[in-house]
């Protein structure tokens, strides 16, 4: 068997793949957080809870309505996105004139409510979600056997991240978004309905989280706590990357996932904390974050 740095190659590549999957979730979530922060100036603490709702939504679609994985990949983000739209319209929009910290506290409260309700209804133990038949099995890549579903998650996540980047950086809609992030009143004075843009931005960020949730459903067990364990790590990812750049969020997300995977191979005890350690190093050397802009 091939060995790399004293570690069997399949184990190493396996962990890198797992890292990429975690990285995919980090990237999708931190991307949404960054986009929402840019427009709304709030850190959406409920992001983890909405990720969890995405997973639950696909589970419910399957078990209550009989709608399978692939339709759920579109439907769940749509449904949760609409839920986010309602949240923004009815609750979050009341906060824009206040200190940013209130947005964090409000969405933290939301996260507690959402998670508490799901825990009441479904308990804390996880529920399985079967990998769709088409993505069952594994492919021999020569140096390792790759479970098809895991390859699919990484592929789809990369595509969605790139698509989000392209929408924001390369389209007229994206130009409006970027301009409104810089100077919202001026953009509104040009005739753009900025409040509506804000609402849809929130819904879009939420839909990204829900999409990640659907992708995660067959990998992690679908349970009410799956979001919170992720969101604190995602916060560290956001601090490391800085929220100034879309591509930065994506690269940081995937990169940290891989670092985490490699740590599992070489120093398993530290794998849960390595992202935070990286954050400490970044804070010491580049407090603004790797891709952060000044101020």
């Amino acid at each position, binding site marked *: 068997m091939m060995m790399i740095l004293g570690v069997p190659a399949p184990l190493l590549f396996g962990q890198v793949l797992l890292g990429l999957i975690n990285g995919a979730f980090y990237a999708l979530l931190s991307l949404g957080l960054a986009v929402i922060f840019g427009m709304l100036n709030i850190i959406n603490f409920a992001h983890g809870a909405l990720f969890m709702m995405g997973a639950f939504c696909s589970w419910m679609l399957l078990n209550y309505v009989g709608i399978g994985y692939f339709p759920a990949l579109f439907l769940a983000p749509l449904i949760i996105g609409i839920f986010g739209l309602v949240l923004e319209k009815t609750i979050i929009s009341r906060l824009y004139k206040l200190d940013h910290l209130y947005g964090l506290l409000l969405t933290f409260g939301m996260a507690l409510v959402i998670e508490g309700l799901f825990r009441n209804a479904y308990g804390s133990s996880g529920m399985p979600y079967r990998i769709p038949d088409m993505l069952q099995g594994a492919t021999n890549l020569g140096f390792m056997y790759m479970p098809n579903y895991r390859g699919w998650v990484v592929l789809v996540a990369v595509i969605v991240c790139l698509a989000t980047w392209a929408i924001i950086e390369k389209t*007229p809609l994206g*130009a*409006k978004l*970027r*301009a409104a*992030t*810089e*100077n919202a*009143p*001026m*953009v*509104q*004075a*040009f*005739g*753009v*309905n*900025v*409040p509506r843009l804000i609402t849809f931005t929130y819904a879009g960020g939420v839909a990204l989280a829900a999409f990640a949730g659907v992708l995660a459903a067959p990998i992690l067990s679908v349970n009410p706590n799956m979001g919170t364990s992720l969101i604190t790590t995602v916060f560290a990812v956001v601090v490391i990357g800085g929220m100034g750049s879309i591509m930065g969020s994506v690269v940081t997300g995937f990169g940290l996932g891989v670092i985490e995977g490699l740590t599992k191979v070489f120093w398993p005890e530290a794998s849960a904390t390595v992202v935070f350690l990286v954050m400490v190093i970044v804070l010491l050397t580049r407090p603004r974050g790797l891709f952060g802009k000044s101020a």
Partner: protein
Amino acid sequence: MLEIKNLNSWYGESHILHGVDFNVQEGEVVTLLGRNGAGKTTTMKSIMGLVPRREGSIKFKGAELINLMPNQVARSGIAICPEERAIFGSLTVTENLMLPPVIAPGGLSIDEIYTLFPNLKERARTAQGTRLSGGEQQMLAIARILRTGSKMLLLDEPTEGLAPVIVQQIGRTIREIKKRGFTVLLVEQNFRFAATVADRHYVMEHGKVIDMIPNDQLAANMDKLHEYLGV
């Protein structure tokens, strides 16, 4: 075309405009003159709805604007070129130019804009709008609102801090768009420049309009004007 009556505006606790009255006829170029802090920029922002609180009446083509959001004011056909120019650094020059949505037919085409502002054509590929020189930024800020089809333009100190040759170019632009039937409300510190483009001048002081001088009577009122502006 634009009729403003008893306009009051506040920033938080401070009362900035104390009952501003004036009007602009269709096809006119009208200036607001006055010292720093007289309330000229606040008047512009109040028309657009960019102040936290305002009262009074702003009628545009007969429709009341006082309770509209900035985007609705813009959609009714008024476009602003703000004093700070508001060129977006995260947008390319072309993106900046194309940012304001077209709200009505009759705006200038891109080709016409490039004919008016040849520099912008050369710089169209510049990645960051804020990389442009001050004069180029000012041209971009004017150019982008000419595209939208808005026929009423608010230009807030377009010549501030610019080289004479560029000031001349902006003067030519204003005369050109007047010829095309645009209506312009212009805020100026520099009344010598204002005299070359405007039909009438309103003088503001302490948040009020205190006088109106038609451009052809400017010479006769020079002493009065010097006193108003303290120059």
